[in-house]
C-alpha cells in the first residue's frame, strides 16, 4: 500500500481498515455457526448405528468433486481480479465475471446432485444421514447464491472501472467472503463425500 | 430469632436414603460458607453506607500497589481454595464413592434392578421376574407405582419414548434424565420403609405437572413375597400378541 499523506487519504485508509475489521468479525461469527454445524455432524455420526446407512443411495464423488474444483477455480479467479486491481492493472472485470460464472456453475452442479439423489430416494426425512447432507449442502448453497449475486454486481462495477488500486474495499470484502465460502465447502466435501 | 425463622423456611423433604446425608451435609456446608460470605458482603456495604457517607473524606487509593494487588489476589484465591476446594473435594468423593459408582451398587448380592420407560405422562416400571431376565413373560410391570425393598441398592436403567423426562426421587435426593434413544442410569438405597413421591423433573409438555409416581419402600421379606406373587401375576396376564408390552431390553447389554 502506498504511504498516505493527505488527511483525506488517512480518513479513507482508516475507513477501509475499519471495514476490513468488521468483515473479520462477521467471518469469525459465521465460522462459529458453521463450526456448530460440524459439531452436530460429528455427534450425530458418532451416535449413528451405520454411516452411511446401507439401504440409502450412496453419495457420488465425481460430481461434487467437479463442483469443488469449480469453486476453487472461482476463488482463484476472484483473487486474481483483486490482485490486478491492487496492482493497477486492467482486465479485472474478466476475472470477476469468470468467478461469477464458475460460482453459478457450482450451483448448477449442486442442483443436479440434489435431483439425482432425491430421484434415488434420499430425502431430508430419511434419517440423520440425509438430514446432515441436505442441511450442509443447501445452507452452503444459499451462501454461494448470495455470493454469486454480489459478484454479479461487482463484475458490473469492475467493468465500469469503479475500483482503483487505492479504493476497492467492496471487492476486497467479498473476496474474503468468497474464500470463506470456498474453504467451508472444502471441509464439507471432505466430511460428506470422502469420510 | 428472626434469622432462624427465615432460615427455617428452608426445609428439605425427609431423607429416606442411606446416602442422602452426603448431599444434605454438603448443602449444609455450602449454606454455612455462603452465609458467611454473604454476611461479609452485606456488612461491608452496610458499614460503608453508614460510616463512609458524604461526610466522610474519601481516601485516594487506586489499589494497585504491589502489596495490595498481592493481597487482593491472594484473598480471592484463598476464598476460592477454601470454599470451592471443599465443595469440589466433597462432590468428587460423593460421585466416586456413591452416586456414580454403579459397579459397586450392581455388585451387591441383593441388588434390585428396575427398567423405566418414561412417556407422556406416566412412568412404566419393569423388574425382572423369577427368571431374573428382563423382557420376558414373567416380568413385574407396573404403571406409576414402584415397589422396592429397604436396605438394598436399587439400580435403574431409564429410557423414554417421546420427549425428555427426568426421574426424580426427592426423598432419595437423586434424579436422572430420561432421554429418548439413550439409556441412562441411576441408583439409590432406601434406609426406611414408607411411601414417597416420584416426580418428573424435566418439562415434558402439557401434563408435566401430573407425571407423578409413587415409591413404596417395603421390608425385604415383604418385598420378596410381593415380587414372587407379582411375577406370577405378570406371567398369567401376559399376552404374547401384545408386542408393545415388551418395551424392556437386555440389562447387561445396556450397561456401558
Amino acid at each position, binding site marked *: 500500500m502506498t504511504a498516505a499523506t493527505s*488527511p483525506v487519504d488517512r480518513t479513507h485508509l482508516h475507513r477501509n481498515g475499519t471495514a476490513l475489521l*468488521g468483515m473479520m468479525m462477521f467471518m469469525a461469527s*459465521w465460522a462459529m455457526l458453521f463450526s456448530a454445524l460440524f459439531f452436530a455432524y460429528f455427534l450425530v455420526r458418532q451416535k*449413528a448405528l451405520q454411516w452411511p446407512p446401507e439401504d440409502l443411495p450412496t453419495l457420488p464423488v465425481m460430481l461434487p468433486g467437479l463442483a469443488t474444483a469449480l469453486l476453487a477455480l472461482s476463488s482463484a479467479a476472484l483473487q486474481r481480479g483483486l490482485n490486478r486491481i491492487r496492482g493497477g492493472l486492467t482486465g479485472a472485470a474478466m476475472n470477476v465475471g469468470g468467478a461469477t460464472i464458475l460460482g453459478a456453475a457450482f450451483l448448477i452442479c449442486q442442483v443436479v446432485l440434489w435431483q439425482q439423489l432425491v430421484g434415488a430416494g434420499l430425502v431430508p426425512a*430419511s434419517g*440423520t444421514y440425509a438430514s446432515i447432507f441436505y442441511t450442509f449442502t443447501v445452507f452452503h448453497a444459499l451462501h454461494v447464491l448470495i455470493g454469486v449475486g454480489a459478484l454479479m454486481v461487482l463484475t458490473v462495477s469492475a467493468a465500469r472501472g469503479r475500483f482503483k488500486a487505492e479504493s476497492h474495499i467492496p471487492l476486497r470484502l467479498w473476496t474474503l467472503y468468497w474464500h470463506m465460502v470456498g474453504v467451508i465447502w472444502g471441509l464439507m466435501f471432505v466430511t460428506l463425500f470422502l469420510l | 430469632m428472626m434469622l432462624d425463622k427465615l432460615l427455617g423456611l428452608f426445609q428439605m423433604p425427609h431423607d429416606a436414603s442411606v446416602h442422602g446425608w452426603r448431599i444434605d451435609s454438603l448443602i449444609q456446608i455450602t449454606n454455612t460458607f455462603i452465609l458467611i460470605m454473604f454476611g461479609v458482603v452485606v456488612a461491608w456495604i452496610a458499614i460503608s453506607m453508614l460510616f463512609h457517607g458524604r461526610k466522610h473524606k474519601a481516601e485516594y*487509593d487506586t489499589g494497585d500497589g504491589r502489596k495490595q494487588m498481592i493481597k487482593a489476589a491472594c484473598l480471592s484465591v484463598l476464598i476460592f481454595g477454601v470454599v470451592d476446594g471443599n465443595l469440589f473435594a466433597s462432590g468428587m468423593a460423593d460421585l466416586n464413592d456413591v452416586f456414580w459408582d454403579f459397579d459397586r451398587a450392581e455388585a451387591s448380592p441383593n441388588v434390585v434392578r428396575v427398567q423405566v420407560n418414561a412417556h407422556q405422562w406416566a412412568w412404566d416400571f419393569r423388574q425382572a421376574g423369577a427368571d431374573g431376565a428382563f423382557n420376558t413373560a414373567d416380568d413385574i410391570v407396573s404403571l406409576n407405582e414402584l415397589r422396592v425393598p429397604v436396605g438394598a441398592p436399587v439400580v435403574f436403567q431409564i429410557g423414554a419414548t417421546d420427549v425428555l423426562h427426568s426421574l426424580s426421587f426427592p426423598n432419595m435426593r437423586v434424579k436422572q434424565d430420561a432421554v429418548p*434413544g439413550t439409556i441412562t442410569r441411576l441408583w439409590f438405597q432406601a434406609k426406611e420403609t414408607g411411601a414417597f413421591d416420584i416426580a418428573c423433573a424435566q418439562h415434558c409438555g402439557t401434563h408435566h*405437572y401430573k407425571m407423578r409416581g409413587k415409591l413404596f419402600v417395603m421390608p425385604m421379606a415383604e418385598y420378596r413375597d410381593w415380587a414372587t406373587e407379582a411375577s406370577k401375576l405378570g406371567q398369567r396376564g401376559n399376552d404374547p400378541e401384545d408386542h408393545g408390552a415388551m418395551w424392556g431390553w437386555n440389562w447387561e447389554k445396556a450397561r456401558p
Partner: protein
Amino acid sequence: MDLQPIHPPPTSFLRRYVFSTDHKVIARQFLWAGLFLLAFGGILAMLIRWQWAFPGQKVPVLGQIVLSRSDGKLTPASYNAVFTMHGLIMIFWAITPILIGSFGNLIIPLQIGARDMAFPTLNMLSFWVFIVSTIVLVMSFFVQLGSASAGWTTYPPLATQVGTPGHGQTMVVAALFLVGVATIMGAINYVTTVIRFRAPGMTYMRMPLAVWGLWLTSILNILFVPVLGAAGLLLILDRVFGTQFFISGAAAVRGGGDPILFQHLFWIFGHPEVYILILPAWGIVADLVSFFGRKPAYWYKGSVYAMCAVTILSAVVYGHHMFTTGMNPMLGKAFMILTLLISAPAELLFLNWLHTIWKGSLRLTTPMLFTLGVVFVFALGGLTGLYLATISTDLYLHDTMFVVGHFHLTMAAASFLASFAGIHFWFPKLFGRRMNETLGKIHFWLSISLITIVFCGQLAVGYAGAPRRMWDPHQYPFLANLAWLNQWTSYFAFALGAAQLIFVVNFVRNAIARPNAEPNPWQVGTLEWTLSSPPPVHNFDVIPTVVRGPHVLSHPEVQRTLGRDWISQTEDLPGGSV
C-alpha cells in the same frame, strides 16, 4: 486531520427519529422497545406467580382480557406458553436491548470519544431487525395452538413437532434466529468501534469499565450467538422439513438423531449468554461504585483481568447445565471444576468493588443505590451458583425452583437492577434531564426488598424440592405444605410488579419533558460528561485527547489545584502528575 468527519444532521423526520443512524437515537429506540417488552415479560411473570399461588383459579382483571377463551383461567398448555415466553422475552427482548442495545449504543461512542459507531447503517439495521423479530414473536401468540411452550431452553424432542405442533413454536425459534442476527450486527459494531475509534490517548487501560464490560460481552455475542443460530436452524429444519437431528425414540427414522446434541449447542451458547447479560452490569457497577464512592476503582486492572478471565472461562463450563443427562462422568467432573473456577475471578471483582466503597465518601444517589443493590443481589445469586456447580448437590437441586431462584437473583435481579442504575445515571445523556430522585429512591427500596423476598421464596421452595415449570406443584403430596409459601411469594411479586409503576411514571414524565440537565450533574470525569445533556448529533466538536484514566476522584493534588474532587479524562492538570 480528522478520521471522523462531521456530517450535517439529517432534516427529514424519518431519518431523524425512525431510520436514524445516530447512535444516541438508536439507544433511545432500544430503550423504549426494551422497556415495553420488559413490561410485557413482567405481566407474564405476574401470570406465572398467580398460577403458583392459586393454581387453576380465575385470573383477576388480566384473565378477562387475555384468557377469555378458557374462562379467565390459565390452562396447563397456556401456562407452559406463559413461562416459556416470559423467559425468552426477558432475556432476549428486554434485558438484552436495554443493557446492551441501549447502553452499548449510548455510551461506547461517548465514553471512548467517537462521533458515532463504526458502521452507523448496520447499527440502524440492527434495531430494525430487532423490531422485525419482535413482530414475529408477538404474532406467534395469535396463531392456532398458541405461542412456543417448550421452555425457554426449547429442548427437543418436546420442541419438535413430536411435542409442540403448530406454528407458534416455529415462529418463536425463527424470531430467536432474527434477534440473534440483530445482536450480532450490534456486537460487530461495538467491537469494531472500540478497536478503531478510541480517541487519542484513550488506551485500553483508560477505558471506563462499563466499556470493558460491553466490549467483552460483544465478543461473546459475536462468537456464541451464531451457535444458537445453528441450533435454531436445525430445530426449524426438524420442524418444517422433517429432518431428524433431534428426533429420537418412537418418532425416529433409522435410529434417529440425538436430543442431547441440541442441549450441547444450546448451552455452548447459553452459558456465555448468561455472562453476556452480566458483564455489562459488572462494568456499570465497577464504574459507579467509584463515581459515587468518590474514589478510584480499586485495582482497575485487576477488574479488567477478572472480567477477561470470566469471558474466557464462560466458554468452557456449559456442561454444568447437563449434569443429569447421563454425560460421561469424566466430562462431568471436568465441567464441575471449570465451573467452580469461575468463582475465583468473581470473588476478585467483589473484593475490588467492596474495597472501592470502603473509606469512600459515598453519595447515595439513586444510581448508586441501584448499584449497591446489584452487589447485594448478585452476591446471593452468584453464591447460590455454588450449590449447582457441585454435581452431587445439583443431583438434588437440578430442575427445581432453586435453579430458578439462582438465575433470577443473577439476571432478573442483578442485570435488572443494573439496568435501572444505568437508566438513572445516563438519563441526562439520553433525554437531557435527571429523573426524580425521591421517586427513584422509593422505587429502589421497594424493588430491592421485594425482589430479594420473591426470589428467596423461589429458592426456598426449590430447596424443598419443588420442580420448576409446574402448573400445579401442590398436587404432589410432599409439596402440598408449601402452598402458603408460594402464595406469600406471589403477593410480594404482585407488589414488586406494582412498584414498577413508580418507575414508569418517573421515566415517562422526564423522558418527554423539556431537557434541562447540566452537562455534568454527577461530577465525574468520563468523556460523555464533557458534553451537553443531551449531546449534539456529532457528539464532539473536536475529538478530545485523553490524558488519564476514568476514575481519578479525590486525588489530593487535584483537590489542591482545582478545588474539586474530580477531574475530567481530558483536562490538563498544570504541573500535575496524574
